[in-house]
């Protein structure tokens, strides 16, 4: 490490410039705080070292929520996508999910451009080696960071967004390098410093497939996968008309028995099966080795060929991540139809890295034992660009609010996927990198991607990342929706001959009595457009408003049921547990419950009830105790 006495004063330091770091840095700077973002390489800002897309099921929801709160990811992908698709369109509105293929280089440049031109924000290339802190009355509080050259940055809050860089190790068969993703320099000092501070770490693992030269592939043997005709933007601020453009295609092909034979025959050379990898990998992104071993009866697995960008020949081989040695990789890839003569540009590899152990984070994403130390992204045990960006935004907002002396922004499970994500990360002992899934959101009917703005703009506005004008639009939109729903519920259609005839033409059952427009709208074969005939007093409304009106009416029963569940959920969330509670005083708690509560230190009784090992009876006991101490 370098020796120099240079000291620079700032407000907030962001460690890492991946998707979490970028959102965190932008949030802090936009809230007016002097912010420095550190990266081992300026070229790697907003790098996408794995899949070349943003969004997808439940992740698309996260991007929309980030946007509603005033984050950047949605706007950036709207500028740089090369294909766009709304997934699950045949399913209910709650699981419609937007996914866009990105031009990786363009995405990264465009985000760098935003960062470089953001007021109050400084980009600094350099490895952060130490967190500086002071200890007052046994409480640790951050004071700054020290980088490899020896320079000190004094600050009031820090956000760690170290991704997969901490003590990173990449494995490709027997070939092991101590680097971060894409051969970038790993961060080898910070882990020790954190451990010395009492911030314990564990090892996680993830992996990525090979990139190939597209000229070596035969796409005629694969199925073409086109983008949607009508492109929907991620950002609520992007005008859909501005982003309709020509799109590139992805291609689908399949593994076969030959592929699986080669993998099985070479398992002893896979670092995972040979026991060289110690980290726990995500079940969601299994390596092709894992798929073949765990689902031995599956005859084939899908392989998606996705372009890495418009100005490169590299393509991503989705579905075949691996840590097998290069010779086996080449042999196995070449068994796949269309890939017989493939040339690998970058090998598939697995990467291991340090991340936080469970129980250390509070829902504001501040590390409980060190005041002012926040963290986000893979360092917190998640996986995925969107999960990282979502946490980065919240950690950034809360770091800034801490410096400004304000209460943290904490979204709960009934308000946002971001709330579910963070609650799961801080309340559960996740044993693998955590990926967002729609099935994790118990109130998903209310947490749709289409209403993220209605749910979250107000928080973005209160925090200061959403403008008055944007907020005013939400107020208008909400009142317009309410008024239209009310009007449709109270406008009745008579059962006269002409009406019946029109319904018959639409294949809809005749009316027995006067029926409201809302009731008509609930019929599967009817929609807002084809009931115009009955609706003589209709005012013209924008498409986003009509969409909300229709969803609210068509799924009213289900929505109402979930809203009731949310009401009872909120009751328990509002019962707060004081910081200084001593669980040893609560003698009727079972031992397991007491240990878990001591570790996770839940903020509310609701959060306590979600900790595994805490039973409903323990919760009753806790409620009685809290009442007895007058809280």
């Amino acid at each position, binding site marked *: 490490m370098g020796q120099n006495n240079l000291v620079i004063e700032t407000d907030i330091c962001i460690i890492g410039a991946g998707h979490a770091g970028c959102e965190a840095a932008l949030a802090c700077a936009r809230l007016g705080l002097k912010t420095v973002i550190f990266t081992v390489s300026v070229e790697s800002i907003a790098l996408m070292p794995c899949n070349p897309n943003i969004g997808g099921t439940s992740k698309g929801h996260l991007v929309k929520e980030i946007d509603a709160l005033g984050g950047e990811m949605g706007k950036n992908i709207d500028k740089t996508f090369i294909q766009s698709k709304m997934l*699950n369109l045949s399913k209910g509105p709650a*699981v419609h999910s937007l996914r866009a293929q990105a031009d990786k280089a363009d995405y990264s440049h465009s985000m760098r451009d935003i960062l470089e031109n953001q007021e109050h924000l400084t980009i600094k290339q350099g490895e952060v080696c130490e967190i500086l802190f002071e200890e007052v009355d046994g409480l640790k509080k951050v004071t700054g960071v020290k980088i490899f050259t020896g320079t000190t940055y004094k600050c009031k809050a820090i956000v760690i967004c170290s991704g997969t860089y901490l003590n990173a190790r990449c494995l490709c068969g027997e070939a092991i390098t101590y680097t971060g993703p894409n051969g970038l320099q790993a961060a080898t000092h910070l882990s020790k410093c954190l451990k010395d501070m009492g911030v314990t770490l564990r090892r996680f693992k993830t992996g990525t497939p090979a990139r190939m030269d597209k000229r070596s592939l035969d796409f005629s043997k694969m199925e073409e996968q086109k983008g949607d005709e009508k492109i929907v933007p991620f950002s609520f601020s992007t005008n859909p008309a501005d982003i309709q453009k020509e799109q590139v295609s992805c291609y689908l092909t399949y593994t076969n028995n030959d592929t699986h034979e080669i993998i099985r025959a070479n398992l002893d050379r896979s670092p995972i099966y040979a026991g060289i990898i110690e980290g726990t990998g995500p079940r969601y992104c299994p390596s092709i080795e894992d798929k073949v071993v765990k*689902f031995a009866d599956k005859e084939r697995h899908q392989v998606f060929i996705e372009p890495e960008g418009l100005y490169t020949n590299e393509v991503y081989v989705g579905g075949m991540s691996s840590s097998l040695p290069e010779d086996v990789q080449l042999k196995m890839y070449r068994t796949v139809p269309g890939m017989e003569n493939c040339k690998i540009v970058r090998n598939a590899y697995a990467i291991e890295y340090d991340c936080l152990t469970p129980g250390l984070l509070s829902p504001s994403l501040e590390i409980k034992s060190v005041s002012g130390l926040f963290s986000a992204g893979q360092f917190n045990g998640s996986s995925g660009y969107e999960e990282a960006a979502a946490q980065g935004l919240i950690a950034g907002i809360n770091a800034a609010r801490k410096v400004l002396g304000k209460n943290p922004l904490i979204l709960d499970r009934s308000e946002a996927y971001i709330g579910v994500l963070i609650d799961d990360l801080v309340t559960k002992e996740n044993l693998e990198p955590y990926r967002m899934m729609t*099935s994790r959101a118990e109130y998903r009917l209310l947490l749709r991607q289409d209403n993220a703005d209605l749910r979250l703009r107000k928080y973005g506005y209160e925090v200061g990342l959403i403008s008055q004008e944007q907020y005013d639009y939400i107020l208008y939109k909400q009142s317009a929706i309410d008024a239209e729903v009310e009007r449709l519920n109270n406008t009745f259609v008579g059962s006269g001959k002409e009406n019946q005839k029109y319904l018959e033409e639409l294949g809809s059952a005749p009316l027995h009595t006067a029926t409201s427009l809302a009731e008509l709208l609930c019929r599967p074969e009817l929609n807002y457009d084809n009931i115009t005939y009955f609706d003589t007093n209709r005012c013209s409304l924008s498409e986003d408003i009509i969409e909300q009106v229709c969803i609210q009416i068509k799924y009213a029963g289900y929505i109402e049921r979930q809203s009731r569940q949310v009401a009872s959920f909120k009751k328990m969330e509002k019962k707060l547990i004081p910081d200084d509670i001593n669980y040893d005083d*609560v003698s009727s708690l079972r031992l397991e419950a007491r240990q878990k509560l001591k570790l996770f230190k839940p903020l509310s009784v609701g959060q306590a009830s979600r900790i*595994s090992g805490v039973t*409903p*009876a323990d919760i009753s006991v806790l*409620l009685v105790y809290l009442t007895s101490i007058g809280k």
Partner: protein
Amino acid sequence: MKDTIAAICTALSPSGIGKIRVSGSEAVEIVDKIFKSPGKNKLSESDTHTIHYGHIYNGKDVIDEVLVLLMKAPRTYTREDVVEIDCHGGLYVLKQVLNLLIDNGCRIAEPGEFTKRAFLNGRIDLTEAEAVMDLISSKSEMSLKNSVSILNGSLYKKISSIRSDVLYFIAKIEASLDDPEHMSLDGYEEELKEKLITINKDINYLIKSYDNGKIIKEGINTAIVGKPNVGKSSILNMILDEERAIVTDIAGTTRDTLEETVVLNGVTLNLIDTAGIHETKDSVEKIGIERSINSISKADLVIYIVDSSRELDDSDREIISLINNKKTICLVNKSDLNKVTDKEDIIKCFNNCELPLFVETSALLGTGKEQFISILSDMFFDGKISFNDEVMISNLRQINSLKESYESINRVIDSIDNEMPEDFLSIDLLSAYASLGEIIGEEVSDDLVDKIFSEFCMGK
């Protein structure tokens, strides 16, 4: 906006009188739905702290003649609206009234919940907090033990298997929602609907079985203990044979759940440890004692059989030490043979506690049966023995959960018929899964995500 809870709050006794307490913001409204007084006065329009005579109705049918105590908040035990119903029609009727309350919007109270509410609403002094917490945790433990103990064996397996099927359906739907490009649900609704109809037939069958009292016996849990070769099987056959009423098996679900149930002079006994009754080859003394320990712990009554033609030995003393604090009837058997051990010898082994009642029996001569039955009915009708209230409550909870899962699955079928998208199906499937879990004492936790990953090959 707290929910309204109900429970039987008197000890269950054969006397036929019992009290049901209802507490919560809708207590008055719910009781009004099933209670009619001759004056036609609604409880909601009556003064607080008044007593009302009338009848409980299920639709048009009169269920019981009752007295209703109306106590409006805040001067009540829980500081919520409380209605107490004094029933007169016996256990079966009590249960029916409680069921009616549940059907009309009450929930069965958790163990210790009235006290918990009384405390949380400031009715009980803060200094009592410790006691309240202990009550909740000990009652919950007891309740859990009870509901698991009455649900062993095949019934548990049956519900687990239904539950596991339901989880698979959810996992399949959720996996395809999360990874639509890898998994398709085309045509799945029809298949799912068929399977759900079958499952609901099974659940309905279980509900009916509960209603018929076939699944859980509400009787006196009776352990029959004694060392091997004291003549347990022959004496039991003698005493019980004519009246033995083995409850029929249903659909292979209950064979080892149901031990034998006999009704003697109107008193229902559940005989625990049937393995001990049908003497096995396994006559190693140690095993006999282990068995005894297990059955004694569950028992409300112990029938202890001694061979009067042999001396008491260490095994006997060990058994006696286990039953010291239990209500016991001691059968001194083989009275036709030369008597080596008598009542006095046995009493000496019981130290400083309630002594057993003695009956001399001889399987060979067929004597002692009448005396045994008369002692038994005296004990019961004097209230010296009663059965565990929690068993009945657990029973009710389980029926209730089964009914809820039945309703949830019906809603899934409705959603399929209404062509709702698949993601709506998993909402009610999840409720069914949770209700089934309540029966066997398991929570939802991370089962779903684990199931998705173990059953379906996901991801990029």
